C-alpha cells in the first residue's frame, strides 16, 4: 500500500488580477521510496510539497480529489489533526537552515523542545535522544553542537541539525525542499548519503524537491518533472537520460559539461505545444 | 478614462514620465483599498480645502470682536459653534486656524525630515568618526524633552510663529536621522551600491541618487505619523503663549484662552480641541496606510 496518495492536487492563489494557479492537477503516489520532484522556479514544486502538510497560507487555496496519508484523509483532517501530523509523522526540511532555526535558542533546546512539549519526555532522556539524532546525521561532537547557537554552525552543519530535528519524532515521510542547494558540493554529498541511509534503514518515504535534475537523477528512485504547475513527465531516475518529454530533454541538454564542446549551449525551446497555458 | 488606465498600467512604458506615473497609480490603487488610510486622506484633504477656502466658508471675520455676543453656546443662530470671550465666532476662528496649522505642518515637514535624512544618510554611508560625531549630536538632541527644548529655543529667539516652527523643526529631526541611518546601514553594502561605486560614482551621487530613495518611504511614513505630534507641540507652544501670538486664531492658543471658563463655557476650549484631535487622527490613519503602501519590503510585486 502506498504511504501517500495525491490525486489532482490544485493550489490557487487569489490575487488582485484574478486567481493564479500554482499547481494544476498534480497526481502521484509514494511508497517507502525516494521520490524526486524537479522543476525550475515557478514550476510549483515547492507548493506541491507544502500542500501535503497543508502549509499554504491564504490567499492560497488547496483543492484535491484525493490526498491520503497512511489511510488518513488529509483534505478532511482538522487543523488539530494536521498539527499532530506535522513534524511527528511528516517532517519537512527547508532550503536554508538560517531561516528555519531559531537564532536565540541553542541547538540543544530546539532539538529537545518537541520531546519535552509533545511527548513529555524529561531532561536526561530527551537529551540522550537529541544526541542520538545528531549522531545519526554524522555530527562528530554532538555535545558541542547541542550547546551552540545556530549562527555558530556552518551551513552544512546547520542543515544536518535541521535533518536531525526532523528525525527525532521518527516520521514516516520526510519532505526535503532543496535541502542541499545552499551547500558546497562536497558537503552536499555527505548530506545526501545521510538521507539515503535513513530511507534505507528506517523505511521512511522521502519527497526530494530540487531544481537540479542531475542530482535528483543520481539520488532518487523516481522523478516527477514539473513545469508551470503540471507534471510533464514521470520516470525512473536511472532512465533519466532516456527522457522523452522535450522539457526534460531541454533541461538535461542545457547544462554545461566538463570536457564538453565550446559551442553555445542548447537553449530550452519553449515554443512547443506542451508549454502553452492550456496544455494537458 | 479606460485609455488613461491602460496607459498607466502599461507593462512597457515608453517614457520616464509614464513609468513614474504608472508606479504612482499602482501605489494609489493600493492605498485606495485601505479604508482607514482613505479616511485619513479625506481628513487631511478637508484640512487643505478648508485652509484654502477659509475666507469663503467662514461666516464671520475671525478677528472682529463683538462684546455684546460673548460666550454664546453652540447652536446659536449665526454662531454654529458659539463665540469666545471676545464675542468672536469660534467656527470662523477654527477654519482660519487651519491655515496656521497647515503652515506650521508644511514648514516642519520640509525642514526637519530633510535635515534628518541628510545627517542620517551621511553618517550611515561614511561610518567611522563621521558617524560617531553626527550620531552623538543626534543623541544629545534626543536626550532633551522635545517641548522643553522648543520652549528654551523660543525663549531665546522670542515668541512668534516663525520661531515656533524653527523650534519644532530643530527638535523634530533626530528621529529621522536615526531612521535614515538605520536604513542606510542595510542598503550600504548591497550589490547595487557596489555596482554604482564601481562605475566611479562619488559619495554625493550615491547618497542622493541611490540611498535617499531607499530611506524615503520610511521617513515619509514617520513624518506623517509625527504630524499629530507636531500639531500638538505647536498647540502646546500656543497654549503656553510662546508660539503664535493673539489675536491670531491658532488652535492651541484658543484652547489656552478658553481654559479660564472651562467649566461654565466648555465649548470655547473644546471646539478647537476637537479640531486638533480630528486632524491628528487623520494624519495618523494616513501614516498607517502609507506604511502598507510604501514599505519597501512589501513593494516587491
Amino acid at each position, binding site marked *: 500500500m502506498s504511504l501517500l496518495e495525491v490525486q489532482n492536487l490544485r493550489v490557487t492563489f487569489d490575487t488582485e488580477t484574478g486567481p493564479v494557479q500554482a499547481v494544476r492537477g498534480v497526481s502521484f503516489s509514494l511508497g517507502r521510496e525516494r521520490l524526486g520532484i524537479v522543476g*525550475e*522556479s515557478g514550476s510549483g514544486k515547492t507548493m506541491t510539497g507544502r500542500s501535503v502538510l497543508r502549509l499554504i497560507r491564504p490567499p492560497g487555496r488547496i483543492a484535491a480529489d484525493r490526498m491520503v496519508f497512511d489511510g488518513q484523509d488529509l483534505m478532511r483532517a482538522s487543523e488539530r489533526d494536521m498539527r499532530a501530523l506535522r513534524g511527528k509523522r511528516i517532517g519537512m526540511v527547508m532550503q536554508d537552515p538560517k531561516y528555519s532555526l531559531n537564532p536565540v535558542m541553542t541547538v540543544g533546546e530546539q532539538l529537545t523542545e518537541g520531546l519535552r512539549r509533545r511527548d513529555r519526555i524529561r531532561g536526561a532522556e530527551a537529551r540522550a535522544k537529541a544526541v542520538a539524532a545528531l549522531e545519526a546525521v554524522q555530527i562528530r561532537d554532538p555535545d558541542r553542537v547541542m550547546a551552540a547557537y545556530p549562527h555558530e554552525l556552518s*551551513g552544512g552543519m546547520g542543515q544536518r541539525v535541521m535533518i536531525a530535528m526532523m528525525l527525532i519524532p521518527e516520521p514516516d515521510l520526510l519532505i526535503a525542499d532543496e535541502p542541499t542547494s545552499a551547500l*558546497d*558540493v*562536497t*558537503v*552536499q*554529498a555527505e548530506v545526501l548519503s545521510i538521507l539515503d541511509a535513513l530511507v534505507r534503514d528506517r523505511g521512511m518515504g522521502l519527497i526530494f524537491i530540487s*531544481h*537540479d*535534475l*542531475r*542530482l535528483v*537523477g543520481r539520488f532518487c528512485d523516481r522523478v516527477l518533472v514539473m513545469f508551470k504547475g503540471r507534471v510533464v513527465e514521470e520516470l525512473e531516475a536511472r532512465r533519466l*537520460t532516456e527522457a522523452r518529454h522535450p522539457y526534460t530533454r*531541454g*533541461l538535461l541538454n*542545457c*547544462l*554545461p*559539461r*566538463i*570536457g*564538453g*564542446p*565550446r559551442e*553555445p*549551449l*542548447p*537553449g*530550452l525551446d519553449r515554443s512547443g505545444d506542451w508549454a502553452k497555458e492550456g496544455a494537458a | 478614462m479606460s485609455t488613461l488606465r491602460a496607459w498607466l498600467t502599461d*507593462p*512597457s*512604458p*515608453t*517614457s*520616464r514620465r*509614464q*513609468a513614474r506615473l504608472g*508606479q504612482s497609480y499602482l501605489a494609489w490603487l493600493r492605498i485606495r483599498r485601505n479604508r482607514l488610510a482613505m479616511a485619513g486622506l479625506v481628513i487631511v484633504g478637508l484640512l487643505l480645502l478648508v485652509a484654502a477656502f477659509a475666507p469663503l466658508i467662514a461666516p464671520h471675520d475671525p478677528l472682529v470682536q463683538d462684546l455684546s455676543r460673548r460666550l454664546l453656546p453652540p447652536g446659536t443662530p449665526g454662531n454654529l459653534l458659539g463665540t469666545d470671550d471676545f464675542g468672536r465666532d469660534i467656527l470662523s476662528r477654527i477654519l482660519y486656524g487651519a491655515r496656521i496649522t497647515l503652515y506650521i505642518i508644511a514648514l516642519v515637514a520640509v525642514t526637519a525630515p530633510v535635515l534628518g535624512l541628510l545627517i542620517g544618510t551621511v553618517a550611515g554611508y561614511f561610518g567611522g568618526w563621521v558617524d560617531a560625531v553626527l550620531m552623538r549630536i543626534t543623541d544629545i538632541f534626543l536626550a532633551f524633552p522635545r517641548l522643553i527644548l522648543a520652549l528654551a529655543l523660543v525663549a531665546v529667539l522670542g515668541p512668534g510663529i516663525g520661531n515656533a516652527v524653527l523650534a519644532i523643526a530643530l527638535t523634530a529631526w533626530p528621529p529621522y536621522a536615526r531612521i535614515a541611518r538605520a536604513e542606510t546601514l542595510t542598503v550600504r553594502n*548591497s*550589490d*547595487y551600491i*557596489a*555596482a*554604482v*561605486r*564601481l*562605475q*566611479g*560614482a562619488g559619495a554625493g*551621487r550615491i547618497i542622493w*541618487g*541611490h540611498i535617499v*530613495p*531607499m530611506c524615503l518611504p520610511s521617513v515619509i511614513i514617520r513624518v506623517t505619523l509625527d504630524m499629530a505630534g507636531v500639531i500638538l507641540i505647536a498647540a502646546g507652544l500656543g497654549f503656553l503663549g510662546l508660539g503664535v501670538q493673539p489675536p491670531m486664531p491658532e488652535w492651541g492658543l484658543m484652547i489656552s484662552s478658553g481654559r479660564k471658563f472651562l467649566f461654565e463655557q466648555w465649548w470655547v476650549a473644546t471646539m478647537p480641541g476637537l479640531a486638533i484631535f480630528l486632524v491628528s487622527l487623520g494624519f495618523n490613519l494616513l501614516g498607517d496606510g502609507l506604511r502598507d503602501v510604501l514599505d519597501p519590503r512589501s*513593494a*516587491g*510585486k
Partner: protein
Amino acid sequence: MGLIEIENLSVTFRAKGREVRAVEGVSLTVGERESYGLVGESGSGKSTILRAICGMAPVTGGQIRIGGEALRMPRGPGFSRRVQMVFQDPYASLHPRHTIDRTLSEPLAIHRIGGSDAKVVKALTDVGLPASFRFRYPHQLSGGQRQRVAIARALMLEPSILLLDEPTSALDASVQAEVLNLLTRLREERGLTFLMVSHDLAVIDHMCDRVLVMQHGRAVEELARDDLAAARMTTAYARSLFEASADRMLDPAKAP
C-alpha cells in the same frame, strides 16, 4: 605580460578584534582576451579576490596590476572604464527604485558621456532584451532578464575586463545556458577578458581557458582546460572537487 597580474595577494578582514584571513598569498596572471576561472567552495576567498581588484576588500599584502600599472586607492575613473563587474544575485544588484533606463544611463552620466538615449537602446538589444523594457522597473523582470540588464550595465563604459562573480548561480538551468551563451558571444564580439568565479566546475570548464582551484583562501592548483577535462590534477583537493562534480561530466557515450 598579463593584463591582470596579481602577486602574492592577501586580504584580511578585521571584525571585533578578530582577524579573518580571507585570501593568503594568491598569485595569478590573466592574459589579454583570456578567460580565467576561480573555483572553490564557499569561504575559499574566490569572490574576495574580485572585490580586492575593485578596491572593495582590505588588501593587506601583495600587489594587483592592470595592464602593468599598479592599482591605487581610490581606484579613480580610469579604472571604471577598464574593469567592470557582474554580481551573483540579479535580485540584489539592480536598484529596486530605478528604471532600467536610469540604471543603464547612470554610468554614462557619471563619466559625462553623451548620446545616452541611443546607447541605452543599443545596450538592451546587445544583451537580447527588447527596447520596450527600457522604462520598466527591476521587479517587472525575471531573474534572467535582470542578469542581462546587469551585464548591459557592466558593458556601458566599454571596459576591457569583466569580473564575473557567480553570474549564473542564482538562475534556473535553462536561463543559465542563455546567460552563458550571451557572455561567450559578447566576449568574442568585444574581445573581453574574463575573470570568472564559480563553484560549478562544469560552468568554469565551459567558459574558461585556465582555472585556479582555491581552498581556505589559498591557491591550490592551476589547471589548463584540457588538464581539467582529462582529470590531470596533482593535488588531492582539486581531485576531490572534481570527483564531487562527477555528474557534471560529459557522458562518454555522447561525446562528439
